[in-house]
């Protein structure tokens, strides 16, 4: 049986979680850290335009620093992560620097690259596989604005790295569950066509990849959780036959229950009979969950078939800029006043010749978060947040917008407040381009750094 934990759900999660998890669960065999959501690659692309060596998740280096005491004391824990982002090599170098300065000798870092396919897409833009999966548009329409393109590679190169003695595996874009599948295969020697076992490991990875989301975080009944300030991070105890128990360290907050596990099973899935990963096509329709003690759920029954012959690709392209501003409106008819303020801003922009290509006015607290639904909240609200968000391909339009919020403090409705956060920031928009690429066109590459 091996213990695999997760201490990073997304880039922005707690840097302290890794050392805390290891302190509470010293017999952890593997630690996965997931930094790459759909939006992260765009952020890294922005960072990289300012500094060519900044295309990876810098917070990961802090995590490495925090773990050096454990390696000094003889911990054998191994890390598997996609913190490499757009630049796994520089991420690994920065790691190696920290480890060397901390005298953590004997550790091996593996750097996995090959997921970056932007050059491949550029060479053959008419390939129908590169059409936008959501609307069928050919990639030629955005080719000159393409910023990143990364294939969701699977567990194979990570497994090879582990079998070659890597203690820290740093990759770029990997299918999130594969971070958990790789240690299972390395330890248990499963074959790549043991699809039912791969499905179980993929399910385990799917459950822990979002950290506290399976241990009580964002649960429907969150207020009923114990000690919600200290929700524990998840661990799976995986057995040779693929069955696993999902749990969390003792004396941590939150809960692991059939409910919290079911919620995370249902998170971000499409057809439950055909969850596609580069390692396996998984079916969730015979999964079974059983209580196995306090905060321990035995999970069995995931079934698998061969994976697709294409990898999913997540590409991003420059698509203008956006900016959002907010003000708080207090008083009767707050919602109507907020809408009027939004209209005033748009009128002024149009009059100045800067009408934005896209705009949205919301009254937060008065039914805008999910528009149109009937809820049980009482009568008309007396306070709300005016939120106005605009997008345009020309930065000058957004520059003009950024100066239009503050004047409402003296010419808007009485009861306008909450204006001290400064001018709205302007952020580039990175459009999302999901497409496919033939597996044969992607060749992962592994390098090693020995400390």
């Amino acid at each position, binding site marked *: 049986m091996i213990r695999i934990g997760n201490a990073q759900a997304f880039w922005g999660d707690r840097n302290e979680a890794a050392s805390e998890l290891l302190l509470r669960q010293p017999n952890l065999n593997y630690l996965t850290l997931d930094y790459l959501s759909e939006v992260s690659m765009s952020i890294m692309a922005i960072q990289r335009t300012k500094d060519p060596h900044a295309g990876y998740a810098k917070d990961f280096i802090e995590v490495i620093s925090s773990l050096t005491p454990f390696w000094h004391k003889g911990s054998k824990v191994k890390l598997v992560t996609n913190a490499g982002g757009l630049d796994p090599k520089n991420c690994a170098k920065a790691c190696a620097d920290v480890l060397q300065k901390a005298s953590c000798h004997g550790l091996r870092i593996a750097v996995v690259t090959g997921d970056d396919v932007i050059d491949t897409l550029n060479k053959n833009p008419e390939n129908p596989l590169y059409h936008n999966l959501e609307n069928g548009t050919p990639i030629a329409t955005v080719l000159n604005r393409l910023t990143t393109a990364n294939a969701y590679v699977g567990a194979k190169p990570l497994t090879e790295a582990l079998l070659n003695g890597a203690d820290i595996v740093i990759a770029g874009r990997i299918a999130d569950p594969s971070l958990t599948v790789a240690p299972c295969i390395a330890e248990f020697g499963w074959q790549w066509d043991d699809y039912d076992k791969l499905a179980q490991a993929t399910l385990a990875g799917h459950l822990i990849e979002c950290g506290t989301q399976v241990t009580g975080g964002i649960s429907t009944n969150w207020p009923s959780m114990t000690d919600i300030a200290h929700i524990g991070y998840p661990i799976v105890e995986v057995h040779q036959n693929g069955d696993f128990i999902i749990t969390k360290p003792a004396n941590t907050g939150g809960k692991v229950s059939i*409910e919290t596990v079911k919620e995370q099973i*249902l998170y971000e899935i499409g057809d439950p009979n055909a969850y596609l990963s580069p390692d396996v096509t998984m079916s969730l329709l015979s999964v079974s969950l059983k209580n196995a003690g306090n905060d321990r759920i035995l999970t069995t029954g995931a079934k698998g078939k061969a994976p697709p012959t294409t990898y999913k690709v997540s590409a991003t392209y420059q*698509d203008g800029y956006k900016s959002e501003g907010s003000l708080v409106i207090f008083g009767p008819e707050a919602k109507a006043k907020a809408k009027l303020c939004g209209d005033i801003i748009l009128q002024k922009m149009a009059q100045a010749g800067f009408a934005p290509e896209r705009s949205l006015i919301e009254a937060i607290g008065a039914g805008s978060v999910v*528009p149109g639904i009937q809820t049980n909240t009482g009568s008309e609200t007396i306070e709300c947040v005016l939120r106005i968000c605009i997008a345009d391909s020309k930065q000058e339009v957004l520059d003009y917008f950024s100066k239009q919020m503050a004047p409402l403090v003296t010419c808007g409705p009485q009861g306008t407040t909450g204006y001290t956060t400064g001018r709205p920031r302007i952020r580039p928009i990175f459009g*999302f381009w999901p497409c496919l690429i033939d597996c044969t066109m992607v060749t992962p590459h592994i390098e090693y750094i020995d400390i």
Partner: protein
Amino acid sequence: MTDNMNFQGTLRDIAYARSGDKGSNANIGVIAYTEDGYTFLKEFLTKERVHEFFNGLEIKGVKRYELPNLWALNFILEGALDGGGSRSLRIDAQGKALGQAILEMKQEFLREYSPPSGRK
């Protein structure tokens, strides 16, 4: 079969939920607390009702999947996220609120709603 379900309030009384994003689509998982609750949901929580409930999001279509082993339904709301993540102008660009939203659905809506004629 389902009429003896004494369910008077909102979906929250018989189910829990979680939503997430996939590009410009959102998914919402709805899970019944009991097997009776799942039987009720299977009959009444149709994709038409979900589409109507979320009409304000200008959804292009709704797909529905059943997970009887987990007493759960999974809905894909196509185009619910106005371009998703980076592109959307909405405050909830990733559909994090949709799980809580669907649980607001009133039981009368579930029992009495019929889609307007002509809606697929």
